[in-house]
């Protein structure tokens, strides 16, 4: 990423993270289980897996802070989960997973499922939630995971589209999908 590209990269980052936060907060929960659309997880996974670190870290931290600010949980579970995605990407994800939207959606979905369970544990430890039936918690985790797949894919697709429109990434498509390297055309 050259110095000239920084403003456009930051502009896309600002638009994408803000849009994701607004959508996650504004859209009503799923009618049958109360799970919210995890757009912020999708954005965090996209940046952690597919964008250069100088952009990925601010995006991950900002998304986490926004999620914690908008949620009613006492601890910083959102930021912690997103830092965990970043650590996973640094150690394993970027080397092993193909650089495409599907990888980002998969990582986002797994994070959403885990985060749902962690949130339940945190709320129980704080005494803010009564003990729920194990099958209910499990079904909620599974639904979060399944629901996160299309949501995270959509978040990554929109973020990728904006990055391509802003010429932050190469626009040629190769056999493995779009080239997500930081070089612009």
């Amino acid at each position, binding site marked *: 990423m050259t110095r000239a590209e920084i403003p456009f990269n930051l502009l896309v980052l600002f638009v994408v993270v*803000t849009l994701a*936060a*607004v959508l*996650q*907060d*504004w859209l*009503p*929960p*799923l*009618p*049958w*289980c*109360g*799970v*919210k659309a995890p757009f912020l997880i999708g954005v965090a996974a996209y940046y952690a897996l597919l964008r250069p670190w100088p952009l990925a870290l601010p995006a991950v931290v900002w998304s986490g*802070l*926004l*999620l*914690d*600010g*908008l*949620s*009613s*949980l*006492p*601890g*910083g*579970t959102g*930021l*912690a989960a997103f*830092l*965990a995605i970043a*650590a996973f990407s640094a150690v394993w994800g970027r080397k092993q997973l193909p650089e495409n939207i599907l990888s980002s959606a998969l990582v986002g979905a797994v994070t959403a499922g885990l985060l749902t369970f*962690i*949130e*339940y544990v*945190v*709320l129980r430890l704080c005494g*803010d*939630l*009564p003990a729920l*039936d194990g*099958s*209910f918690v499990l*079904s*909620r985790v599974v*639904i979060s995971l399944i629901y996160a797949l299309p949501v995270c894919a959509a978040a990554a697709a929109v973020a990728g589209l904006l990055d391509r429109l802003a010429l932050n990434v190469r626009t040629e498509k190769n056999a493995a999908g779009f080239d997500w390297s930081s070089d612009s055309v």
Partner: protein
Amino acid sequence: MKIRRFAGIAVPVAIIIVAAWRVPQWQRNLARDGVAPYERFGFRAGQEMRAWSRLGGMAAENWALEIRVQELEAELLLLHTLRTDNAALRRQLDCAPRLPHHITAEVLTLGSADGWSQRIRISKGRRQGVRVNNPVVAAEGLVGRVVAASASTADVLLITDVNSRVACAFEPDVASARGILTGTGTRIAGPAGLQLLHTIEPLRLAYLEKELELPQAAKVVTSGIGGVYPRGIPVGVVAEVEQDASGLYQRATVVPFADFSSLRYVSVLVDASLESPEGGQP
């Protein structure tokens, strides 16, 4: 190699510390006030679309609303007289006037961003006079109370949340019966029914006297005990009464009057005596 080993320990420790970190109120206020203008825009766009989709029936709706406005204007005149009488009597009895006024707010979001608690976010906050513990009502009945207020928004804990407690009575007064209304986590989108594998019950009114005989469809109102909710706000109607598991009390199932799935506007009852200087709980 040493750096990798250090990172392998430091990163998980850092993540645990961040997770245990208590999110400060200013961070919550900043996030909520930051996204509120966009949510307000979304609310208004939704209202516009709703209006366009109902364009055909607008003339009939307008006619019905005109009649309703006339009825309410007449009632308002009567209430104005009663209010003046009330103030005069309170002056004679040397009682401090306690007449809450209301602030109408738009419902910006349904449910918290994490999806675990039954909350709504409204478009009025501390700047407009909303304070923690202010009761929130809809046209049909009680909605909940304010649990957090930022400069331009406020979070309302619905009476359907498992952490909600409302001291209730019956109308007409059934032998001064009292009970505590708790939420059961009824979802706020769509009608109550099956929530995954679990049957969702409406609200539960606990600690009713064992010998109490409630009439069919008794109306539940706030009792005024506890100081948060004023007395007499309609809450719901009793659907079923059964013995408590302990055998010491009865408990009733209550269907709320307010339709939580279609809340668009609510009123916050503002009372200076209940003001809290804090931003509130998360």
